[in-house]
Structure formats: C-alpha cells, structure tokens
C-alpha cells in the first residue's frame, strides 16, 4: 500500500530502496577513491579502461585499490543506469526524471575523468574535477533518496519565514561553501595548492554551517524536518572538523615516511567520506528549507484609489 501525497505521487518502495542502494554504493566509491589517492595508488594500473589489458588483474599492492575503485565505479554506473530507466518509466514528476538523467550524465563524465586522470598521469585539474564531481554526484543520489521517500511524498510542513531571521537564501550558502571547501581540499590533495588554503577556509565554512543550523534551531525549531536536518548537519560537521585535524596531524607525523602510513590513510579517507556526508547533509537541509519555509506574503498597501461607476 503506497503513501500518496496531495499530488497523487505514489510511493514506490522498490525505486526508493534502489536509490538508497545507489547512494550507499556511491559513498563506498568515495571511500574507494579516497583510498586510491591516500595510498598513492592512482597510477598503479597504467592502462584504462582495461587493467593490465585484463578485466581482472592480480589484486596486489596498489592495484587492489585502483582496480577495486574501478569495480565499485562500474557497479555505481550500472545502478545509475537502472535508476534512470526506472525513473523515466514510472516517475510522474518530470523534474525528478531529469534529475535522474543528470545523475546518469554525471556518472558517465565521472568515468571519463577517471580514465583521463590515469592516461594523462594525474594532472591536478582533472583529478580535482574528478574529486569534486564525485561529491556532487553523491549529493545528487542522496537528493533522489529524499525525493523518492515516503517522508517527502507526505508533502511539506509549511512554516512562514520570519523576516527578522530569513533562512531561505541563507540555507543555500552552506552547500555552496562546503563545495568550495571540498574543491580546496581536493586541489590540496592533488598538489595544486598548499593545504593552508583548505585549513584556512575551514573556520569560515564551519561558521556558515553553524549560522544556518543555529538559526533554524533557534527560530524554526517547530518544524521537525528542519530541526532533524540541521541537527544532523551540525553533528556531521562536528565530526568532520575533528577528522580534519586528525588527518592533518597524522600527515605531519608521517611526513618523512617512505610509504603511506595506515593511521594517516584512515583519518584522511574518513575525512573525505565525512566531507561527502557534510555536503549531502547541507544540500538536504537547503532543499527542506526551500520546500517548507514559505516566503512571507507581500504586504498590501491600503489602496487610495476610488472606484466609480460609469454613468
């Protein structure tokens, strides 16, 4: 039995759980990609799309990470194809069908970027674009999970925007700042810039997230969805800040090591993965704010015009 909204969009459990599976696999893919970079394994398989001319090379050393990343990526690509076809066949919301198509396009572009970064020997701009698109793609899959959920289909819980504490536009600042911070982090990891830019931006991004989340908790806490989403964003951001510190300190401690050290790899990959969750949580919060918080109705000025009857 499906849940129906006022617009008669039926809840499809299969479609929803498929998108959950896709989002989960995409997070695994982000972890796998983070492992490739942190283990310096990006060029362990010099050819692409095959690996050592085979579909399944010996999974040893760095090949385990690089080819493993390719295998998870192939799975995510196949899951995305099925999701997009599913959306186009059964989903009545046209914008959601097109969001599926955008996700499919993104995963194809992402695959090509991944191949190019191998064939062109890790140029920083392709590697950074590959890392950023991964984060955007993950947020897209999480948004599709949200849009296909029974929670979403029950309809919005409207609340009027408080003109003294506006939130609709402010909520967009969080995902934009997080994306910029992710780009700085990716550029630092691929040695385009120093880590100092990513580190310096961290307090600013954290401040923006605090601003958005606390404004919601202080002035829109009556809305359960917004309260839950902003609390989740705060909790994830808290973890992310400490993981960032741990990743940096472990990197400093192992600066002279001749190979990537397990502690540094663990903290750095967790920092990348929780970065993806931060981005997704900020996107979900912005979506929920834009959906539930209504712009205040324009005030009507008292009219001084006079209506006269024509003779």
């Amino acid at each position: 039995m499906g849940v129906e909204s006022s617009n008669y969009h039926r809840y499809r459990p299969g479609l929803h759980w498929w998108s959950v599976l896709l989002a989960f696999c995409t997070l695994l893919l982000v972890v796998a990609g983070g492992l490739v970079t942190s283990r310096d394994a990006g060029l362990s398989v010099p050819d692409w799309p095959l690996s050592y001319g085979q579909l399944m090379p010996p999974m040893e050393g760095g090949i385990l990470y690089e080819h493993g990343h390719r295998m998870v990526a192939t799975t995510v690509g196949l899951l995305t194809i099925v999701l997009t076809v599913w959306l186009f066949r059964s989903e009545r919301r046209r914008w959601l069908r097109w969001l599926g198509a955008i996700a499919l396009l993104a995963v194809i572009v992402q695959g090509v970027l991944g191949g190019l970064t191998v064939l062109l020997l890790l140029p920083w701009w392709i590697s950074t674009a590959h890392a950023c698109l991964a984060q955007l793609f993950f947020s897209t899959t999480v948004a599709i999970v949200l849009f296909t959920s029974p929670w979403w289909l029950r309809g919005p819980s409207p609340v009027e925007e408080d003109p003294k504490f506006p939130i609709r536009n402010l909520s967009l600042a969080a995902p934009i700042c997080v994306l910029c911070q992710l780009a700085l982090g990716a550029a630092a990891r691929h040695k385009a810039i120093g880590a100092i830019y990513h580190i310096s931006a961290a307090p600013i991004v954290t401040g923006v997230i605090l601003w958005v989340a606390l404004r919601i908790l202080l002035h829109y806490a009556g809305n359960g969805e917004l309260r839950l989403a902003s609390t989740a964003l705060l909790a994830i951001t808290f973890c992310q800040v400490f993981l960032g510190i741990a990743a940096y300190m472990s990197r400093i401690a192992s600066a002279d090591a001749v190979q990537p050290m397990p502690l540094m790899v663990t903290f750095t990959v967790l920092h990348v993965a929780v970065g993806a969750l931060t981005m997704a949580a900020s996107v979900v919060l912005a979506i929920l704010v834009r959906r539930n918080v209504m712009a205040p109705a324009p005030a009507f000025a008292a009219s001084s015009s006079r209506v006269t009857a024509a003779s």
Partner: protein
Amino acid sequence: MPAIDMSSNPQCEKQHAVPQKAEVVVVNRNGTLRNVFIWIKDGLPRAHWTPPAESAKLDQKGCVYVPHVLGIMEGQQLEILNDDPINHNVHAESHINPPWNESEPPRAEHKYKTFDSEEVLFPVTCSVHPWMRSYIGVSPHPFFAVTGDDGSFTLKGVPPGTYTIEAVHEKYGRREGKLTLTPGGTATLDFTYGS
C-alpha cells in the same frame, strides 16, 4: 632509516631475509652520504658529447629499485628490468623530459627508454608498491657520478678549466662548489650537508 613495511605484499617481503631499509638517507660507516648525484653543472666547452653505446640499467628486485640513484646521459638508452615475480608499474615523474607510466609484468621483455633533455634529478616510482622510488639524473655530458659506500666520487677525463660542480641529494637538496683543473692535474672538492 626505517625499515620498509612490505607486509601487504608477501611476494615482496619473502625476497628479503631481513627487512629492507629505506634508502632516502644512507650514511656510510665513515660518516659520508651515499646516493648523492654529482655532475658538472657549468663550465664545460660547448661540444656534442656522444652517449655511451651500453645502456644504463634500472632493475626492480625484491620490490626495490636498483640502483637507488642513477646517472644517465642525454640520448643514452635506459634498460628497465623486472626481476620480481609480480607486476610493477614504472612512472618517470620527469618535468622537462616527457613523463611516462608503463606496466612491467613479471618476465616481461625489458623496457628501453631514452631522455633527450638535461634534468637533474627526477623520481621514478611504482604505484603498486608505494615505497619504491629511485632517482635519475640526465646529464648532457659524461661527467657525472653517484656517491657510493665511501661517499667519494670521481669524474675522469675532464678537460682543463674552471667548473661549477653540483651535488644533488633527494632529501637534502643541492650544493654547489667551484673547481679549477689544470692540464694533467687533479683537483678535489668536498660537499657538506647539514649544519
């Protein structure tokens, strides 16, 4: 230097009776530094120096590059061997010469490469085994050497003149010294790293 942890690659680990130590900094018994690339940076007359016919060899043995630092002339052939029973990739991280990254499976035919431009030093790495790193210095002339287990170096057959000699170490960087050579004579130059 610390021992390399090869435990994630048993095929590498079992080729060493004792754990292999990293070669980033190797201090000899007499307190000298091994694996320093020495070459004449400046002062030689303009001339075309013919590269030797024999190739310079870079081996992959026990998941370690041998030698750790290699000098080669512009246009000289570099022969890359894989003595290991496992896959390696060989990535020349050069900036002036075109970089390349190629796989070298076990028992594969040797690879042959040349570098056409002066470049001192650039790393050669294996991403399958991230501790594997060697350095290549490409010189336009034959007057280069790599310090060995007594820290000394000899450049033979250098024409008389005044030269800038450069020492390059992968961790401690570059040092320069001046040296004047008279006809039939010899000259000595010492480089010191550290305080």
